[in-house]
């Protein structure tokens, strides 16, 4: 276990969307702040810092995690995936992203990255999730614009068409 002094700045290295990156952080630096401002990947958003709204959800070693409730030092050496990893390099949207567009599943887009990451994790383990299961996962996220119906429809479009 690495010991870090309270006021010490330390080098934190991790793999972000397949690329090895490192930057300085304090022990108290939140992972969401680290990803956004130290590593410059601003697709992850911060809505509450209390672990309730879900906008900051990222994958750590494939598991959906609230990056506002995780310290940067905890992600040392881990595989972090954020919304920037979903589309193809040329910008082509993946099936989940395209389904969100087809079903008007976003308006302001601020909560969307967190929701996409939760379902990226969940559908990888349960590709044919039922509507009840979809709603259950989605209940971990707050969206103020859409009223959720489009989001449920989008994920259902993916679960129906996935092989």
């Amino acid at each position: 276990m690495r010991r870090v002094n309270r006021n010490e700045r330390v080098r934190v290295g991790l793999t972000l969307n397949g690329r090895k990156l490192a930057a300085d952080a304090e022990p108290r630096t939140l992972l969401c702040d680290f990803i956004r401002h130290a590593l410059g990947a601003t697709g992850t958003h911060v809505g509450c810092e209390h672990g309730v709204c879900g906008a900051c959800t990222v994958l750590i070693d494939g598991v959906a995690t609230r990056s506002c409730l995780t310290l940067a030092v905890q992600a040392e050496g881990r595989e972090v995936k954020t919304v920037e990893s979903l589309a193809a390099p040329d910008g082509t949207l993946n099936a989940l992203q395209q389904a969100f567009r087809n079903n008007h599943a976003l308006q302001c887009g601020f909560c969307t990255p967190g929701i996409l990451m939760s379902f990226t994790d969940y559908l990888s383990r349960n590709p044919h999730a039922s509507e009840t299961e979809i709603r259950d996962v989605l209940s971990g996220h707050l969206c103020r614009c859409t009223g959720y119906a489009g989001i449920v429809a989008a994920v259902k479009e993916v679960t129906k068409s996935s092989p």
Partner: protein
Amino acid sequence: MPDQLGKPVLRKEDPALLSGRGRYADDLPIAVGTLHAHVIRSPHAHADILRIDAEQALAHDSVWAVITGEDVRKLSDPFLAAVKTPVQQWTLAVERVRYVGEPVAVVVAESRYIAEDAAERLSIDYQPRDVVLDPVQACKSSAPLLHPQAGTNEISVREFRYGDPDAAFASADRRIAMTVPFPRLSFTPIECYVVVAQHNAAENSYDVLANFQGPFSMHPVMARALRVPGPKLRLRIPPDSGGSFGIKLSIFPYIVLIALAARITGRPVKWTEDRIEHLVAASSGPNRVTEIEVAVGHDGRVLGLKLDQLEDYGAFLRAPMPGPLYRMHGAVTGAYDIQNVEVKNRVVLTNKMPASLIRGFGGPQLYLALERLMHRIAIELQLDPLEVIRRNLIPAQKFPYRTAAGALYDSGDYGRAVDIATGDGRLADLKKRREAARAQGRHYGIGFAVVVEPAMSNMGYLSTLMTPQAREKAGPKNGAVSMARLTIDPLGAVTVTADVTVQGQSHETVLAQIVAQELGLSADEIEVVLELDTAKDQWSIAAGTYSSRFASGTAVAAHMAAVAMRDKLKAIAAKQLNVLPDDVELASGKIRSRSNPDNALPFGRVAGTSHWSPVMLPEGTAPALSETAVWTPPELEPPSSDDRINTSLTYGFIFDMCGVEIDPVTYHVRVDRYVSMHDAGRIMNPMIAEGQIRGAFAQGIAAALYEEFTYNEEGAFLNGTFADYLVPTVGEIPDVEILHHHSPSPFTPLGAKGLAEGNCMSTPACIANAIADALGAQDIILPATPRRIHELLQANQKFPSPLAGEGREGGGAVGQNHSRTPKPPPPLSPPHKGEGNSKPRA
């Protein structure tokens, strides 16, 4: 090229937002050396500031400044307000704090973490004062005064009379009255406030980025506070903003605060609001207590309406308040044909956060009272609630309909819309479900609500607040300017800019559809740039995104600019095609002769002519392709000398109908079925329209069942996190069957009406009526939480049956058995002693 308008075109905004390439305020690069601010907030609801000791905080290395009310008072002027009172508000508390969470000081340091550390070392001594939270109590002379120099907390009272209400009430068979409170809540956007400010000392000018939403009538308010002329406050709006729902108007005091911080430190300063700050002090809608009474015949026909609306705006009346009272003023009779009206509008201040813009903007408060009373009329007269509604609806042949208070309803067929919505077995099904449930002793109820949804505010509506004599002196105020600009570059690429800010409403897509429709292109060929910059863009006091003004305003300006551009291109092409302009059409990316389509030129070639070869332009045609449309509709007149005001340009209609069942064990209200009929005139993009309606519906459900800002008796705020303030998740939002009826607006060339606030207005009333039906209860206080439903079931309110003959004739309605004051809502979580709900600061 198939029609672009009216189609569910997929959004141009989505690819970037779906792949993490959104450009929200906190994502944008900031200047090297930018400092970070942390706001210290009052833990007391009402207290004098005795002393602020910043020595320890300033001793913390890399802290650049601690700014207090005294600094702000020296460097800036109090904010202008709509009501002329001696109440003064700066961007920090001066001498006294008046609500928990009120900004008291700002620490500026090299990082937000360090600024928060330093804040822990700031010691502020307060002398607590008595607190008043309830609007009715605050009006009493015995109540603690928030602003001694104002002499009262009730800082504005205005009375209006239209038609002959006294005669109506004297002659009516019955008078029925109710007291209907509406809660204090906020549609908190998931992205909080962000401000980045720079100060140019040489010119004493400011350059500020902020996710402000408008209206830009606030720009002069900010510039005046900063003591600079408008052009020296450059305000930039980021391309993306994470929702607003009216709340991001109230960022304006922080724009001034962070601008002053930049001036004081000589460095750019950035401030990002966190969730606790947002919940405790950003903004909220005003809560209201309405005393409403009708003069009604035995047949349920309403002859006269009286409203006493007491609205609680918290500790300060910020511009443009008391908007919610006056935006709905013209539509105070809703969808009903009532010409005898008496209205009393009262503004009161209490020890709560200042209230301001919020989606629905006065509609939810008005229609909860009006629609609950219409339901009540049916109960008392033993009529069918839907019949009472139908009997009073404005008949189709009376449109455009001038209401008693002066609104000019543009178009509608209210009865027809109700027929369609209740038809196809929908109402019959609801009644069947109710019968089946009641047969098993279950609590099932049906509710209705009709609302008229105003869109695009007349910027003069707030002056109705002034007396006619005062208006005469000050000069008339009216109108609402919409602006859009279209330019075509040398290779024929089309760009649109317009006077709206973006918070997720899909303006980019719909503007592209409007322009593509006229130029014979496809929406994805149109570039739309909406990052409003007051130094470079055209804007007016009406610019911004509020009052659902897009469809009735900016969309029209864009259409007009596109039509002007189309006609210019026709003239240019006609010469080259050797035909008359009337024979030219723009279609499928070509500009061609209508009678001989083979005689055609690519769009880009014709557009290029005016750049590369102005010599080929027809006589008198100006070079360059830039069309700006500036539009203000004539219907938006100033308030008349007898206080009639057409507050908005277009008026949509909504009929909602729902069935609810109340669980006798958990007391939870389950929405069994919900139908919502909308008449918003012409729909420009059905997919986007449905998204706006579903979003407003979810917020209507939130107000009806879940969300409320609660305070304990000491004024401590009890909803500091999303665990205490119940924003509904997917589990709490029932399905809604959305139906459409189309009465195009005759007042705009597009015929489209703003439709984004309707269900915020109709859904709370419809749910409340259904609960009243399910429980046979009268005083439905929202949000109808399980705790409140339990109290209703306990109270077991009995209806005095009309035959009971308790001196009913002519007397006030029975049912006045409740005191005027709504019981303060019991706190959802155990009350906090002493400290405010936010982290102890001082």
